[in-house]
């Protein structure tokens, strides 16, 4: 069987992911990852959270969907978590994932 060499290499992007509060305790923070071009926000976070099952379960439900209370930001702007599957990550993005805020 003949194999064809792909002429192109998949491009890789540098993305920074920041978890806060109890998510940070479970998953760490300021994680710089090489992300594949075209990856969506939910896929990126799922891959990172998968390293710690407790952390994963804090953020995702049994269907791999963000739990309702999880808040997402991309470069300091809120992203509706239901839009995460359609939100494509770009090179240099800073993604933040955190539980409801409790300042004051």
């Amino acid at each position: 069987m003949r194999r064809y060499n792909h002429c192109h290499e998949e491009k890789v992007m540098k993305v920074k992911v920041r978890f806060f509060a109890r998510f940070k305790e479970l998953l760490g923070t300021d994680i710089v990852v090489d992300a594949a071009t075209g990856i969506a926000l939910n896929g990126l976070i799922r891959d990172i959270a998968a390293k710690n099952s407790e952390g994963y379960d804090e953020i995702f439900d049994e269907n791999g969907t963000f739990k309702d209370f999880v808040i997402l930001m991309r470069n300091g702007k809120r992203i509706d978590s239901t839009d995460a599957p359609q939100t494509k990550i770009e090179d240099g993005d800073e993604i933040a994932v955190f539980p409801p805020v409790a300042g004051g």
Partner: protein
Amino acid sequence: MIAIQKEDVDVGKLIDAAKQLGTGAFVIFDGIVRDDDIVEMELEAYHDVALKELKRIAEEAKKIHNLLSVDIIHRIGRLAVGENILIIVVGAGHRAEAFDGCRFIIEAIKAGVPIWKKELRKNGGRWVPGEHQHGAGKI
């Protein structure tokens, strides 16, 4: 002064610095670590985003409530019982504006500024649950 910092602040100096022609009232909010059987409180912030949000809230409060000055200092790090967590100093021409403006600011901070606090007890810690917000939903 709008800041997120570890250090405490001198409220009297903030008031003195904020006095200007037309000021008729200051309202101060001082949120402190309550003795809820805890040893310490630990606070963390998404610093850049939280600071930008505090500045936005201050400007919005000035416009809506006709305020002359707003200072907000939110502390982070480990704080003991009785220490200041959040100081808001609002100056206005009249008391009604100052009270309303200060209330507006504290409620806006609680609703959306990315800061979290953890109660540290002898037998472990507990993140204080947020009162507001939802990850799914347009804002």
